[in-house]
């Protein structure tokens, strides 16, 4: 029998603040981090975003450390430190030394890359900054987490656009199940507020200039965010042995790919992934209480995701609480699915479902209970978190409550 995997630590930094406490207090109050972008978006048509507020890297890193840390790596290390401490683990612990660190990122070190391109293409300088490669490589965040936290087990980055963080979670889940490691630090990080990336998003015409209104009639697209979400996963046995507080069991994962269109979501693909996550977790559809939706607020995603929920859950679909927390932390790309898993775990742990903020009235083909604007107190024993990336790369993660009594 494969080993059970539990969540014992949470870390987050996002537009909602630099800690999980900030994150959850905003989510449970339905408070959105989306606001006007000042200088950061100058010269682009992107008007709003969810930027980490008052972020000063020097509060978190020494002047010795900073030159090697792209903004996305900074976020990854900050959220990892928090998750580790939250799990009651410390740098130097044997369990940490042997742990895995797997970080999803959609963009990698874009800020570093773009600074070098400005020097070369715009200022016609002859030399790139010597640290461009080690700082900007997409795996830099994994290396930095390993170096800063003294993690010596398997460490690498995975990338699948908006599902990157969730794919990283699956990697950790499989490593623990198979007995390869006992502890895995998993999640995602991205820092997409760079001029070149904003211009690229502008050209794709899927970003809203209003706000993020998932599943609404007047939704006008997604809103970008930034940050990192990190989780400590552990084998049940290891967690119990050291008396760790368990938030939830990561009961199962579903992955699939659409083999279809590069940007258009597929109802079949979404439905197949949710179905496979439930099957993998050994859960009946009607056991699910809460769905943290992918819910990007693009024209294409929301009705497709809703149709897939109907297909998988049948008559139970109407009884589900479905919310998109992207309405509050924005779409932090590779970090989003990890932030959303943190939100889902907290919903289960606190028996409180975060709302879909900025909700007006439901859009065509969006006929489920989206928990509009106000968090809902309800028993949450089973929840799933949906992530569907551009290119048709899908992940659904299923969690269930873990009876501490059994420890």
């Amino acid at each position, binding site marked *: 029998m494969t080993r059970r995997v539990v969540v014992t630590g949470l870390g987050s930094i996002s537009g909602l603040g630099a800690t999980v406490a900030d994150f959850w207090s905003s989510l449970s109050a339905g408070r959105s981090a989306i606001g006007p972008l000042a200088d950061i978006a100058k010269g682009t048509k992107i008007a709003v975003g969810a930027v980490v507020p008052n972020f000063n890297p020097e509060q978190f890193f020494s002047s010795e450390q900073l030159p090697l840390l792209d903004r996305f790596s900074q976020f990854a290390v900050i959220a990892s430190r928090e998750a580790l401490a939250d799990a009651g683990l410390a740098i130097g612990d044997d369990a940490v030394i042997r742990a895995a660190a797997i970080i999803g990122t959609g963009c990698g070190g874009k800020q570093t890359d773009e600074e070098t391109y400005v020097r070369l293409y715009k200022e016609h300088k002859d030399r790139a900054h010597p640290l461009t490669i080690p700082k900007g490589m997409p795996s830099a965040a994994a290396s930095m987490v390993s170096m800063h936290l003294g993690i010596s087990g398997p460490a690498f980055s995975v990338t699948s656009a908006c599902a990157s963080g969730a794919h990283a979670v699956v990697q950790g889940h499989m490593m623990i199940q198979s007995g390869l490691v006992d502890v895995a630090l998993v999640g995602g990080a991205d820092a997409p507020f760079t001029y070149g990336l904003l211009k690229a998003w502008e050209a794709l015409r899927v970003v809203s200039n209003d706000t993020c209104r998932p599943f609404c009639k007047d939704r006008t697209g997604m809103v970008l965010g930034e940050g990192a979400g990190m989780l400590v996963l552990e084998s049940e046995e290891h967690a119990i042995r050291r008396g760790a507080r368990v938030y939830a069991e990561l009961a199962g994962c579903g992955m699939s790919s659409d083999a279809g269109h590069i940007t258009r979501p597929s109802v079949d693909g979404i439905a197949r992934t949710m179905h496979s996550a439930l099957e993998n977790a050994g859960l009946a559809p009607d056991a699910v209480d809460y769905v943290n939706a992918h819910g990007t607020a693009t*024209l294409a995603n929301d009705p497709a995701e809703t149709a897939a929920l109907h297909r998988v859950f049948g008559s139970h679909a109407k009884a589900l609480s479905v919310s998109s927390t992207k309405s509050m932390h924005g779409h932090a790309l590779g970090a989003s699915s990890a932030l959303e898993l943190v939100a889902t775990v907290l919903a289960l742990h606190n028996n409180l479902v975060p709302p879909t903020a900025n909700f007006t009235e439901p859009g065509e083909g969006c006929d489920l209970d989206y928990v509009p604007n106000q968090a809902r107190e309800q028993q949450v024993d089973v929840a799933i978190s949906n992530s569907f990336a551009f290119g048709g790369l899908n992940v659904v993660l299923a969690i269930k409550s873990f009876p501490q009594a059994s420890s």
Partner: protein
Amino acid sequence: MATNAVAVIEIIAREAKCSPEDIALNTGLNELGIDSLKAIIILSELEDLLGIEIPNEIIGSINTVGDIVTKLDELQRISDTE
């Protein structure tokens, strides 16, 4: 044919890899294999060529080649009167 129509047909022909003669104003974008992503590329080229800004919202309301031409005419009328 009006200049906008000529420009639109030329750009669509290039994206759809067909001859401009095969495209009429009432030709559906679907028939030409123009999906949402190709439509975005076409709009971007038109913005460049005509020096105008085309709002994102029009994507949901263009089904034929003529729909794009009509939208462009409207947008230019608005910018002329501004």
